[in-house]
């Protein structure tokens, strides 16, 4: 599969593409990262986080005009995240940049790095979210997870105009709030 095909699949939230990339570069990444003297468990964490960053950035279109390969992007991300681990544990490593990430991409890395899993409220939000109808789940995921603009959702989902999408989205949010509210009572 070519890089373009993989990226196109990632944009569709196709996790099989992610699994393919995971298997494809794992050994090489561990070899590449071995010079930093990190334990295998840490490398596994970093590698998984780097793939999540790759996936999330691909989803919002950051890899659409990728000049390098998926591998370079992945390894650059992995290195960045590995350095973050070291910086946090006060070990100094001088970075040579293979890939220049923009502010948004770096923010995603920070966010994935800091993610310690959902808290109780967030878990409850997701549980209730899953109770919503398919249309609602779809529109909210496209907007909040895939980072699509309302206009793009209108085109993709074939809504009449942007206002319809807007009011559909706000109706769905309201249903979600109701679900959460009812549970509290």
């Amino acid at each position, binding site marked *: 599969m070519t890089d373009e095909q993989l990226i196109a699949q990632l944009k569709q939230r196709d996790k099989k593409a992610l699994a393919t990339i995971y298997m494809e570069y794992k050994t090489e990444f561990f070899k590449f990262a071995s010079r930093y003297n990190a334990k295998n468990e840490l490398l596994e964490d970093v590698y998984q986080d780097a793939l*999540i960053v790759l996936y999330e950035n691909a989803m919002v279109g950051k890899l659409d005009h990728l000049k390098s390969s998926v591998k370079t992007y992945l390894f650059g991300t992995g290195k960045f995240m590995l350095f973050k681990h070291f910086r946090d544990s006060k070990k100094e490593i001088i970075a040579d940049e293979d890939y220049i990430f923009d502010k948004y991409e770096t923010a995603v890395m920070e966010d994935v790095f800091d993610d310690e899993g*959902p808290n109780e409220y967030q878990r409850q939000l997701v549980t209730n979210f899953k109770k919503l109808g398919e249309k609602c789940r779809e529109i909210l995921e496209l907007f909040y997870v895939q980072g699509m603009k309302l206009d793009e959702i209108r085109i993709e989902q074939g809504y009449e105009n942007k206002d319809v999408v807007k009011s559909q989205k706000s109706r769905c949010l309201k249903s979600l709030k109701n679900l959460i509210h009812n549970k509290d009572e």
Partner: protein
Amino acid sequence: MNKEELINGYFEGSLSESQLAEVENLCETDTDFATDFEFQKELQQSLKKDDRLEIKQLFSGLNNQAAQAEPKVIRMRTWLAAAAIALLVGLGSWLFLLNGSDVNTDDLYAANFTPYDNVVHPIERGNELEDLQTQMFAAYEAKDYELWLQLTEQLTTKQKDGYIDFYGGIVQMALGNHEKAIPLLQGYIDADGELKDRATWYLALAHLKLGAIKSAEIELAKLVQMGSFKTKAAEDLLKALD
């Protein structure tokens, strides 16, 4: 730009500096705005975190598969290796004496495995099979498991209902690919699928077939505790394995 548009613009990343400042200002001065804005940010964060969890489960499933497929290469000092081998031989014969003769996991598996009925996707005969999932379940009912796998390839994550993994797991078992069935069933159970008890049963059988008796027992015990599906059969199997 009204408040709703401001919030939407924030998530679309299309606000100007001054509009961003306005959002910040409203968050401090307008409680309703702040509540609404925070709720949407929280939702975004929750959905992303949930997605990440799912991905990590996928990866650990892949690692488990790989661990079963290829034995790990371990570098050992020679004397340590010799000691380890001696220990393994000893342990192996002990295990063989203890379990090998009386438990035949293959027979137990064969006596218990039948593909689960399609209870999720009714197929109306005569209708055109246009929808991909309908085609898949038609293949499933016809026991054409290879076709099911081919069709799965075409299914994008977005179209995929949760129970596809459950049935996909059974398909892999029916084809003899038990190591492929495990992550599918496990994923379905972890996602709290509606047929979770059923999936646990099949997961136990998959472990059994692979000779992972301990894992099979753990799943069977969970099933007995659920008490909603195959409780008796699970208890019998546990006794047979004991």
